[in-house]
């Protein structure tokens, strides 16, 4: 469902726009960057923010 939400938000953006997704550790942290790449989006960054929170930057 995390990627579903990500995909819906990406569909609202213009090409070139960047979406910031904050994720906690677990399956979505693997799945969101992988599925984004598979769908042809550019994953600019996967970084640790604090605690178990990670940031994924995806460019449409």
């Amino acid at each position, binding site marked *: *469902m995390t*990627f*579903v939400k990500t*995909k819906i938000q990406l569909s609202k953006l213009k090409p070139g726009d960047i979406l910031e997704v904050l994720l906690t550790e677990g399956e979505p942290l693997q799945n969101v960057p992988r599925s984004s790449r*598979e*769908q042809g989006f550019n994953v600019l960054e996967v970084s640790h923010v604090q605690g178990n929170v990670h940031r994924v930057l995806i460019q449409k």
Partner: protein
Amino acid sequence: MGITEFALKNQPKETKKLSLICFSGDFDKLVATFTLATGAAAVGYEVNIFFTFWGLDAIKKKQGRAFVGKGFLPKLFGFFMGGLGSSPVSRLNFCGLSPIIFRYLMRKRNVATLEELVEAAKALEINLYACEMAMHILGLEKTDFIHEVKDVLGVATFLELSEGGRTMFI
């Protein structure tokens, strides 16, 4: 090369298409239907959902209990069946208490609720279809359903639509 590997490599190519027959109007099974559907649509699958019998409750405009349908008996059935908001859990429903508990737990654990999943299905432009025969039995019309329902179909048309992809019955 092992047998499984060989079989996987040589299986006929399927198009990225998922067709779901949504027969059940149970809360948990509807969650399964819409989770699969939205997950597949998000990764580029063409998704069709064919709602039949109890499954039709999920796409009714009126989400609570309402006398929907033509004629006395269909109206009575319509009332007891209700819509998306009054769908029971398939086990341990506890007179309708369990869906309330599930909705609470889903929000608390930050899991998409059934209503959010349906909204996501609409946003991802999943093809929603209603079964003509079941509608006829239950005295329902296309106008009783949410406007995202694309068409009213019979089995033959559904089989044509689902050809070349995977089909699941829930």
